[in-house]
């Protein structure tokens, strides 16, 4: 899952820019991902994991980095 999220961000959201993305990097602060990118990332996760992410969960705490996203999804899948 970590790999899938990572490669989606790299290929689709960074638009081919030569940026090395670390799992702890601040996706939203760095300007790597804009608001439209966040929407696409969530749609991608929902499609590929077959789950729905409620809008109120799409907050900084859960989406600020690849690490945060993975932790959120793991917690949501076991919940």
């Amino acid at each position, binding site marked *: 899952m970590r790999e899938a999220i990572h490669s989606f961000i790299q290929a689709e959201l960074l638009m*081919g*820019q030569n940026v090395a993305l670390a799992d702890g990097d601040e996706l*939203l602060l*760095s300007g790597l991902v804009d*608001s439209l990118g*966040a929407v696409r990332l969530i749609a991608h996760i929902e499609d590929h994991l077959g789950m729905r992410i409620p809008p109120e969960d799409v*907050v900084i705490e859960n989406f600020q980095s690849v690490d945060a996203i993975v932790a959120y999804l793991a917690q949501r899948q076991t919940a």
Partner: protein
Amino acid sequence: MTIYTLTHILDASAQRYPDHPAMRCNGASMSYAQWHRRAGALAAALVEQGVRPGDRVGIYLNKSLETAVAIYGIWMAGAAYVPLDPLAPAARLIFALNDCGVRHLVTQNNKAAAVRELAGQSPLKHVIGIVQDQLPVPLQGLTWTEVNSAGGPMPKLRVTEQDLAYVMYTSGSTGTPKGLMHTHHSGLSYAQLSADLYDLRHEDILSNHSPLHFDMSTFDYFSGPLRGATTVIIPEAVTKLPASMSKLVQDERITVWYSVTTAIVQMVLRGALDKRDFSALRWLNYGGEPFPPAHLRSFMQRFPNVRVSNVYGPAEVNQCTFYHVDAPPDDDESIPIGEVWANSEGIVLGDDDQPVADGEIGELAVRTPTMMRGYWGRPDLNAKAFYLRSAYEHYQDSFYRTGDLMKRDSLGRLRFFGRKDRQVKTRGYRVELDEVENALGSQPEVGECAVYAVPDGEGSSLIEAAVIAKRDAVIDEAVLKAALAGRLPAYALPHAIRLMDDFPRTGTGKIDRRALRDLALSAPAKAEVS
């Protein structure tokens, strides 16, 4: 005290409301007295470093309390601030630093790597916010801690309302950005007119959604402080997640919200508004793009006690019209731009540069005390930007030509009918399509290209491009995008690049961009499908 420069805003509010929270950001807070003291210390440091009245000082900061300290500290030193996009590629920053001759930069320690890239390619000499050993030789650094603990004597400066207060860069159609010159007079006029119009009060809590390099931020940094209100600076990351943004409105008890339309539409669509308490919010102002009536209706029905207003005005004039939306729109007719605000006049000009009759479409030109002085170092643009109307012999009134096509409806309200040129708004950002086309066309593998805006389905638009490769050249989309990312801000990058053998053409052989846009709508390019 008499307030006749922007600097006096902070002087007056620090005297009147010393302990009131002036700025908050990410859990940190600063009272008016603290703000005044920190700005004074920065001014002393800048003067010590050699800043003189009239100088331009760059601000290169992420959303933080330091942005507010920087603006007023630079003014106290008699200089003008130049807000730089903290996310822009180095080439764009280097352009601005060279264009208006910036020798001093106010920044933060985590920008050290980026600042090192600017050294040697710009007139930059002094950097505030970065420790010396992180900087290459020609640059002299001073940390914020050093600034705050210093504070030498200040020379007596004579700053008037006619002096330059800020130079703000925006997309230029010739391929390079252009710097808008605002004076203390135009900035303060904006602060006073907007504080009056929206009845700002000392008890208000304002949202600061716009980054410093966008003109909307002046409401949060000038108008709110003029009334001794509190401004909550919204961190960049929060602005990207609508549910976090709406939570901030709730938790910070924001009373006056002002942002680009896109940000509010996103909160309506994905902001979990049914779970939010907006009971403190009394006024919501939007601008930059039309508000899709269906989304506005949805917001107003959910929050019937919030007053909603449409703000209009290119950055060249800060603001010049207003429209209060009294009730949720009951149909899908666009919301009026409204009427020209106080102490200002608007005329609608036809192709012959004469005012049109009411009900006819033409370009809106305005004269207002909030108008810029002109574009920095661009006599060519300044010769075209203003409409001069003869008032008396040897004396003319100067109107800014907005480039926006408008007409007055039967009630005398202005309504928007698009642009006269190729400037577009993409999700709140102002972009000249010609600048993007210029950047794309200068790539070695590109033979011919066209850049156009495609509706995004949420009331705004996205930029897309179509490209024909040069003979025998191979186009790698990723390489092309990476090259553009080195020149343009992220929001101006085409979301999709369509590779074509030929373009649809009009009868005269010109590229038919409308057909390209329709093609993009009916058959999205590959990169759009995720």
